[in-house]
């Protein structure tokens, strides 16, 4: 029993420590990428304190953290104190909770004495045996919106309230495509456990992005929106809302809100990798056991899996950061149109196609003379093509409400009016 608790606490320490460090260094990475994309150099001065060693600016996160902690922690007079103090904690707790079930690797080889009474192999997740892990992540992800709403409401500030309103409407709207996006994955794996979902992709050798491209597109768009990253960062659009729901926050509380957002991005990256990019699987590198039980892992394979998973997550995060500078922010009606008129039908179509593929892929494969996975993948890509072309043709997101349209009528030639 004590051994189990120690094991769980050790994993917990690794996860929380790793996440906090990762969040700090991702801020640095984000600033670097922002600078490089704008042809600047980015933070490259801060190195080891009290020396002149610069280390490409790798000391910057430490300086940022110290700055945040020692800044004045202003609580404005007009706020609801209880909720105002609660909001950062809720955001942070909800963001961290998700990592209780998200695996950061596969399993470790047997290396502990049997007398310690620890079930081996040790699975690399804090709570690896939770059967509804996917549901859990989505539940705590949905709880994060409470933090945002509390922050916006308690701040007693119009900008904060508008940011919180936008954020909550956006998060609730994009929960649907998010759920529909993973429905196909869960159906294909037949399990709500992350380890099973990865194992299914590893055993077949077909990552879900190849089999269910439509689901991938729906999920990644919804994940961007859930993480409130550009082009979906309407909740804190600086140009319109000062800072959105964290306008009135400063010091450590602001840092907690910002770190919470980074954690959401990390969660989203982990989910994208686990659901669609094969998790820790990479052909030739992580093979050696792809059986669900997983008891023949050697140390090189176990470490390679952790490395592969982290590399994929980092790649997805880089994509997040590059997208930020590639695409302008959506207008609010465009955001809602995209969620309800595009992503929701696409998600439904994806579920239908995946369900049909699970049922009939064998027959399609026999008819086409290819493997079952290939047949399912062909169906998936056909669905994606169909969805993109149909959407482009129907163009449901364009809402032309410019007053200009009425002008031909004003000028007297009404036939030009649409």
């Amino acid at each position: 029993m004590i051994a189990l608790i120690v094991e769980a606490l050790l994993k917990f320490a690794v996860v929380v420590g790793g996440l906090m460090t990762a969040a700090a260094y991702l801020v640095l990475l984000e600033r670097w990428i922002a600078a490089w994309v704008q042809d600047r150099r980015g933070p490259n001065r801060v190195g080891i304190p009290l020396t002149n060693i610069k280390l490409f600016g790798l000391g910057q996160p430490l300086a940022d953290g110290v700055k945040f902690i020692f800044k004045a922690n202003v609580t404005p007079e007009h706020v609801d104190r209880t909720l105002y103090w609660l909001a950062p904690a809720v955001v942070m707790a909800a963001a961290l909770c998700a990592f209780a079930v998200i695996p950061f690797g596969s399993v470790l080889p047997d290396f502990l004495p049997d007398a310690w009474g620890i079930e081996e192999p040790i699975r690399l997740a804090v709570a690896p045996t939770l059967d509804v892990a996917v549901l859990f992540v989505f539940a705590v992800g949905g709880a994060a919106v409470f933090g945002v709403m509390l922050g916006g409401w308690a701040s007693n500030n119009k900008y904060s309230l508008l940011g919180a309103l936008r954020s909550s409407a956006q998060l609730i709207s994009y929960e649907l495509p998010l759920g529909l996006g993973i429905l196909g994955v869960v159906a294909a794996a037949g399990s709500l456990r992350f380890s099973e979902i990865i194992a299914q992709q590893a055993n077949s050798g077909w990552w879900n992005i190849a089999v269910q491209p439509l689901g991938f597109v729906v999920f990644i768009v919804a994940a961007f929106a859930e993480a409130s990253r550009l082009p979906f960062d309407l909740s804190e659009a600086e140009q319109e809302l000062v800072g959105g729901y964290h306008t009135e926050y400063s010091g450590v509380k602001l840092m907690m809100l910002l770190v919470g957002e980074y954690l959401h991005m990390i969660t989203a990256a982990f989910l994208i990798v686990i659901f669609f990019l094969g998790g820790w699987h990479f052909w030739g590198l992580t093979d050696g056991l792809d059986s669900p039980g997983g008891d023949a892992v050697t140390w090189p394979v176990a470490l390679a899996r952790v490395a592969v998973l982290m590399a994929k997550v980092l790649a997805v995060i880089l994509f997040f950061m590059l997208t930020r500078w590639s695409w302008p922010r959506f207008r609010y009606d465009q955001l809602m149109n995209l969620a309800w008129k595009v992503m929701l039908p696409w998600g439904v179509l994806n579920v239908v196609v995946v369900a049909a593929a699970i049922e009939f892929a064998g027959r399609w494969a026999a008819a086409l003379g290819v493997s079952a996975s290939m047949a399912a993948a062909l169906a998936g890509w056909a669905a994606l093509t169909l969805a993109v072309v149909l959407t482009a043709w129907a163009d449901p997101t364009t809402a032309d409400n410019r007053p200009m349209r009425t002008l031909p009528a004003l000028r007297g030639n009404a036939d030009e009016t649409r």
Partner: protein
Amino acid sequence: MKPDDPSITWVEPPELGLAGKSYLPLFVQGLTTTLRHLLSPKKTVEYPEEDHAIPDPIIYRGVHRLNRDDQGRVKCVACFLCATACPAHCIDIVAAESPWPDREKYPQTFTIDELRCIFCGMCEEACPVDAIELTSLYTLSGKSREEMIFDKEKLLSIYDQTCQAEPSRTQRSDS
């Protein structure tokens, strides 16, 4: 002008094609632009270690200097044209009778308040004997206001510092 003014030609944006409406080509285009800039050489300069390249030092308007003639004397004849031209009133000259036979006056003191100066270059343009010039030195800093009031000796020493790198700017400097 009202929106229904007949002289306004209203132009509609071109309709997007199927590819444009599907967002995908435009997204790839945007991502390519971002990636190209991500990997391109950076425009900013590591400033304290590395100096900015000034495109043409001859027309740069930095710190002032008082030129010397070929005998090492100050060129200025204390005519006050620069002080008159100065829109910021930062030049203060006290004239005295010249000890040299080739001119009537010379500046006993010549001070420029570099904190008031707006570096417009009007003094340089006004000077009839090309005595005051702006250099390309831009690292102008001091620890007090008093330190930033440059007197004649300081301005002459700036000439000594910069006369090798930057010869006199104007064509009239024949003396």
